[in-house]
C-alpha cells in the first residue's frame, strides 16, 4: 500500500468518524434545544432579574447586588430555609424507611406481586394539589376524618385540631408525603435490587453469608447508583416543597411551616417583588446544587469509577 493510499484511508476513517459524531449531535439536538429554551434561557433571565428591583407591574430598575444584600437580613427566608432542610431530612428518612421494606417485599416475582406493586405505586399518580386538598379536608377538626375518627374510636375526648400546632401540621403533611411518594422510591429501589447479578448473590450464599449479610454487604453496595438517584430525587423534591404547605397550612400556624419556595412565591406574587424572588431562587438553586454534589460524593464508588 502506498503512502497516498494510506492517507486516503485515514482521511476516510476520520470522515466517517466525524459523520458519526455529527449524526450523534443531530440526535441530541432536539433535547438540547428543549434544555436551552426551557432551562438555560429562563435561568439566565432569572439571574438577570435578580440584579433588578423588578416589580410585578411597572418598569424594572437595576440595583446590582442589593437583592442579595437584603437577603442576608431576611430572617423569614433563613427561617424558611432551616425549616425546609429539617423537613427534607425527616421526609427523606421517612420515605426511605417505608420505600425500602416495600421494595424488598415486591422485588421477587410472585402471583400477587403485581397487585401489591400497583397498590403501593398508585398514590404517586395523584397530583400533589389534589392530594393536599384531600388532606386539608381530612385534617379539618369538625368535618374532617382524623379528629372525628379519633373521637369516635374513643382515643381522645376532645377534638384534636391538627392545624393549630406546628407538630400537628408537620406530621400530618409528613404522612401525606410518604403516602404520596414512597411508591416512586420503591420502584426505583426495586429496579436497583433486581439489577444486582444473581450469581454474586449465589456465590455469597455458598460462602455462608446469611440473609442480612447478603443484603448489607452485597446488594446495598452494588445498588449504590440507584440509591444515589433515589436519594437525590427525594432530597431535591423535598427542598422544593410548596404545594402541600400552600394548600394545607398556608405556612402556618404562625409561619412555622413556611418553606423556602413558599417564601419565594410569597415575595414574588404577593409582595410583587419579582427581582427579590429571583435572587432568592438563585440562592436556593446554589444550595440545592451543593447538597446534590455532596450526596454524589458521599455515595461515590470506592474504586473511583464513574457513577
Amino acid at each position, binding site marked *: 500500500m502506498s503512502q497516498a493510499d494510506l492517507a486516503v484511508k485515514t482521511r476516510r476513517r476520520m470522515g466517517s468518524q466525524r459523520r458519526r459524531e455529527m449524526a450523534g449531535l443531530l440526535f441530541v439536538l432536539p433535547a438540547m434545544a428543549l434544555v436551552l429554551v426551557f432551562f438555560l434561557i429562563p435561568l439566565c433571565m432569572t439571574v438577570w432579574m435578580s440584579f433588578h428591583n423588578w*416589580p*410585578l*407591574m*411597572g*418598569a424594572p430598575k437595576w440595583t446590582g447586588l442589593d437583592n442579595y444584600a437584603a437577603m442576608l437580613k431576611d430572617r*423569614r427566608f433563613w427561617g424558611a430555609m432551616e425549616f425546609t432542610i429539617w423537613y427534607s431530612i425527616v421526609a427523606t428518612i421517612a420515605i426511605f424507611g417505608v420505600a425500602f421494606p416495600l421494595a424488598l417485599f415486591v422485588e421477587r416475582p410472585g402471583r400477587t406481586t403485581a397487585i401489591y406493586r400497583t397498590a403501593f405505586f398508585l398514590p404517586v399518580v395523584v397530583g400533589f394539589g389534589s392530594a393536599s386538598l384531600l388532606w386539608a379536608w381530612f385534617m*379539618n*377538626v*369538625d368535618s374532617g376524618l382524623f379528629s372525628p375518627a379519633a373521637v369516635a374510636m374513643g382515643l381522645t375526648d376532645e*377534638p384534636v*385540631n391538627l*392545624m*393549630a400546632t406546628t407538630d400537628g401540621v408537620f406530621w400530618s403533611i409528613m404522612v401525606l408525603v410518604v403516602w404520596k411518594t414512597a411508591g416512586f422510591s420503591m420502584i426505583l429501589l426495586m429496579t436497583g435490587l433486581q439489577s444486582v447479578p444473581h450469581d454474586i448473590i449465589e456465590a455469597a450464599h455458598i460462602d455462608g453469608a446469611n440473609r442480612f449479610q447478603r443484603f448489607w454487604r452485597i446488594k446495598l453496595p452494588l445498588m449504590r447508583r440507584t440509591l444515589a438517584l433515589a436519594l437525590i430525587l427525594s432530597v431535591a423534591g423535598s427542598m422544593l416543597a410548596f404545594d402541600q404547605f400552600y394548600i394545607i397550612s*398556608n*405556612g*402556618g*400556624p*404562625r*409561619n412555622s411551616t*413556611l418553606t423556602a419556595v*413558599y*417564601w419565594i412565591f*410569597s415575595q414574588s*406574587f*404577593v*409582595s*410583587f417583588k419579582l427581582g427579590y424572588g429571583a435572587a432568592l431562587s438563585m440562592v436556593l438553586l446554589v444550595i440545592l446544587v451543593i447538597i446534590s454534589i455532596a450526596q454524589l460524593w458521599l455515595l461515590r464508588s470506592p474504586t473511583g469509577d464513574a457513577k
Partner: protein
Amino acid sequence: MLRTLTRVSALALAVGMGTAAAAQDTLTMWARTDVQNFLPQVVEAFNASHTTQVEVQFIPPGELVQKFATAAAGGSAPDMLSLDLIYTPAFAAAGQLADLTDIAKALPYFDQLSPAHIQAGTYDGRIYGVPFSADSSVLLWNKDLYAKAGLDPEVGPGNWAQIEEQAKAVRALGGDVYGYYFSGACAGCNAFTFLPYIWSQGADIVSADGTTATLDTPEVRGAVDLYRRLIAADAVPPSAETDTGSSFFSAFAGGNIGIATSGAFAIGILNTQYADMNYGVTYIPGPDGQPSSFGGGDNFVVTAGMEDMTAVGEFIDFIYSPEMQKLMAEFGSLPVRGDVAAQALEGLDTRYGVATDAMAKGRTPSTVVYNDIYNSATGPWLQFLQESFYGDDVDGSIMIAQETMQSILDGVQ
C-alpha cells in the same frame, strides 16, 4: 392593541351588516368574581342604551393582579377594571392606571361619592379609582339563639361588654353552639373585621402618613384582650383558630353561632339562600359603643394609555344613576353615592341601612404595600393575630409584628 382590534372587528361587523350606523366602540372590562352578582346586569343595561358596548370577563380574585400584570406587560390589558379598592394605590404607583381626576370632579355629585373609595383611589393627589361596589364590615347576630339564651333577640351587642356577655350567654346553651366567630387564620377577613375594633378607639396600626407602624398601643392591646377573653371563655369554636376564610360566612349561616364578624355581602346571601335564618345586623362597636367599619368593595379604574375617555365618562355616569344604584343594591352591593342611597335602598331589607351607614363611617387603609402588611398569609398582620390571640407572649408578638411592619413600610420610602 386589543382595543384597536375590537374596534376594527366591530367596524367590519357594522359594514358587513350593511348598516349605516357608525362604528361601535367596544370597551373590555375585567372584574373579580365577587361582583358577578350584579355587574352583568349593569353592563347589560348600559349596552342596551348606548352605542359603546362593554364586554366583561370575570377573574377569580386571587388571580386578578397576576393576570393583569402579565396582560399589561404583553400589551393586552383590558380597558377597564373593577378592582378591589385596596389595590388601587399599588396599581396607580406602578403607572398602570389612567388619571380620572377630571372626569370624577366634573360629576355634579362628586362630593357624594363614598369617601373610603375615593381616599383609596387617590394617589399623589390625583384620582385613579372611583367607587363601583361597596361592602362594609358589620356584626351579625342570630336572633333565634338569642331568644333561646334568654337575651332580647331584637337588640344586638352595642359595646364590648355586651359582646362578651351575650356571647357567653349563647355559649351557655352548650353543645355545638358557640357565642362568637371569626376566621382566625385569614389575614384579609381580620383586616375587614378586626381593624374596626382598633379604629373605633381612634387608633390605627399604621400612622396617618403611612410611615410608622403603631401596633404597640393600649388600643391595639385592648382589642386583642377582648378576643383573648372570648377565647378563654370558650365562646369561640376551636375550629376558628385555623379557619383560613373558608368558613368566614358559612360558620354563621350554619346556625350555631351567636355573633359573627361579617360584611354587608352576607345580607344578600342570607336573604336569598338561607331564608329561614332569623338574624340582625349591627355595627362593629368600640369599647363604649363608638361604631366603626372597614369600607371595602371595588373601585372602577381605567388602564393607562386610553386616549378617548368619552365612553368611559358615560359608563361612570351611568353606574351612579339612581336606577343602577338601586339595581346593584338589590343584588347585594351597597350604594356608593350618598345622595341617592335612601332612594336606592327604598323597599329593600332594612338591615342594608345599617350596613350603608357603616359604609359611610367606614375607613380603608390606603397603602401601596397593602398585600405585604395585611393580606399576605405569610405577612406580619396574620402572624400578629394568631400569636396575640392564641399565644402566651402577647407583648412579644406585638413587638415582632411592629418590627416587621416597620421594615416593610421603610422599604417603600
